[in-house]
């Protein structure tokens, strides 16, 4: 029995479950009852692998970052999810879920998006499969990630603005859930992270686990060993981290490191670092660590990166934190921007600001020269150029 994967009842330790209104029960139950059988079936696996290879461009390279390694005194490899079609790891999951939706007989797709990466990845696979696509996005995020809004529209998706609350990812998720309640029969909801009611966290983690599977294979060739000493990833909801950690969860010799968005700093009230300032609660269908008031109202998060601007964290990560299986670092907006520019200048790779949070951890850790460190470079920075320009220190 593994201790860091999901239990039969949908829990990771004390986190997880399916806290959904009855109106969503039939949909979520249909998924729960069928997802393992479908995704483990041979024809699903064949189609999934084929698309990951020929459409997404997998396997993505595991690149030895020479100059970064020199600077931080360790053997640092970058898992190049930024080279996936659409520019981030998000597409691994949307390919998986749209194939699943087809098997379940659904012909309409809805999704929520923060930075727009998941929205673009969803709009992309909907175009690929000829399915109707509606993406909810917070009004604030639509303004700060304009190119992605236009990308989704070019791909044929309808983008609907979430105008309640902080008008960011949390509110887009609320609107998508409401849409699903109103359209339960023909619609599949492609959640973009390892959040939401069971089985979503496990299902999304499985689709993203191709990342750690490839890391194992590639490290064997490069280093003659199939596991690194460290895996570092940024965590908002936590899908890229779940994918990068997945095959190492039970191998406790691999140190798992998560970078959370501290915004202006965890003590400033303008932060999204859930494990530092959250406590156990229920949002969007699962029990997890959640930023909230004493009265149980969800607190509006802040991060410079729209993809990490979420007041919760996936239940798997809440458990990794609680059980101390992973170590968590709080990375401020400023630290992330500095790390993003540093990677650009040292390796010629401009990372998404989400991913830059993972690189900022390097300054806070001590390595031995022989340590093998894998950083999950979850997305590229094209969508963030405006933020880099506004920040200006390069």
């Amino acid at each position, binding site marked *: 029995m593994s201790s860091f994967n999901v239990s039969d009842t949908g829990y990771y330790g004390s986190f997880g*479950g399916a806290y959904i209104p009855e109106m969503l029960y*039939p949909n979520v139950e249909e998924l729960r009852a069928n997802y393992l059988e479908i995704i483990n079936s041979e024809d699903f696996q064949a189609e999934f692998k084929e698309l990951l290879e020929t459409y997404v461009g997998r396997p993505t390279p595991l690149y030895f970052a020479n100059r970064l390694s020199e600077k931080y005194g360790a053997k640092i490899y970058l898992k190049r999810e930024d080279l996936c079609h659409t520019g981030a790891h998000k597409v691994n999951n949307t390919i998986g879920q749209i194939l699943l939706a087809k098997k379940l007989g659904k012909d309409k797709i809805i999704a929520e998006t923060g930075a727009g990466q998941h929205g673009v990845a969803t709009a992309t696979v909907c175009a690929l499969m000829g399915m109707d696509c509606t993406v909810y996005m917070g009004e604030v995020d639509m303004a700060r990630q304009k190119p992605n809004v236009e990308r989704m529209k070019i791909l044929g998706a309808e983008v609907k603005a979430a105008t309640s*609350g902080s008008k960011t990812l949390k509110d887009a998720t609320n609107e998508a859930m409401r849409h699903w309640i109103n359209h339960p029969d023909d619609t599949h909801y492609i959640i973009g992270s390892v959040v939401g009611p069971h089985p979503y966290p496990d299902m999304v983690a499985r689709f993203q686990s191709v990342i750690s599977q490839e890391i194992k294979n590639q490290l064997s060739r490069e280093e003659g060993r199939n596991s690194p000493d460290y895996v570092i990833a940024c965590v908002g909801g936590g899908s890229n981290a779940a994918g990068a950690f997945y095959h190492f969860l039970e191998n406790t010799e691999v140190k798992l490191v998560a970078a959370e968005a501290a915004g202006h700093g965890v003590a400033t009230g303008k932060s999204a670092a859930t494990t530092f300032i959250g406590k156990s*609660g229920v*949002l969007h269908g699962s029990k997890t660590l959640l930023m*909230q008031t004493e009265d149980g109202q969800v607190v509006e998060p802040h991060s410079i990166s729209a993809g990490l601007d979420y007041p919760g964290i996936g239940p798997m990560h809440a458990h990794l934190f609680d059980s101390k299986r992973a170590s968590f670092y709080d990375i401020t907006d400023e630290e992330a921007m500095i790390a993003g520019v540093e990677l650009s200048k040292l390796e010629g790779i401009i990372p998404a600001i989400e991913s830059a949070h993972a690189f900022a951890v390097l300054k806070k850790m001590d390595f031995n020269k022989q340590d093998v460190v894998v950083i999950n470079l979850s997305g590229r920075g094209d969508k963030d150029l405006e933020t880099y320009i506004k920040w200006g220190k390069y």
Partner: protein
Amino acid sequence: MNRINKAFEKENSILNIYFTAGFPDLRDTIRIASALENSGADMLEIGIPFSDPVADGPTIQKSSKQALDNGMTLALLFDQLVTLREKVSIPVLLMGYVNPILQFGIEEFCKKCKEVGIDGTIIPDLPVQEFLDTYKHHFEEAGLENIFLISPNTSEERIETIDAISNGFIYMVSSASTTGAKESVQDGQLEYYQRIQDMNLKSPRLIGFGISNSETFNIACEHAHGAIIGSAFINQLEKEPSDEGIQKFVHSIKKQ
């Protein structure tokens, strides 16, 4: 016997009205409850506002936000409800999302409900199984009847399970939708009402979501034991929050 069960013995066209605690004004809770009873409502649901009400449409979202902006909390609501039973004798339920209740502490929440004279609870995002496995005894000890929802997509088998564990009433969600007032009843809805009526469940049923006027209320009463009105009443409170406005609204639904 709980006030809820007594109400169903006495009346078979129950008018149950929902309002959000702390809306439109922070201190309106007892006044509105009392005005509703005096106007002829048979049962009340007081909503605990939550920042992320995913099962609610725009009207209740807005009232929840205003209530929170006004400073409403679950602790404050219980303080206000201390005088509830001096003013109100009809059954009163609390309705809210699970997170504020979890933070308050479920055991403590049940105790407080008992202290102030609450008869039942509706917690839409607390799953049935979770309730049965973990929390049921706290509700029973406090004499609280926890109400479960069914929707047009709920399977017959699951409806029977819910019927078996229900001891107040079953909350029938009228269509696949979030909350919000609708003018009329759609064809598919009547089939669903009839299908459930024909199941001969042991529990009484109240139909909610989309009930807004005497027409939709009367149709609900033909197929169930009454109906729940929320958004339409919130709209009324926004326009005319006075006791007279409340009375006008209740009389427009249910002739005395």
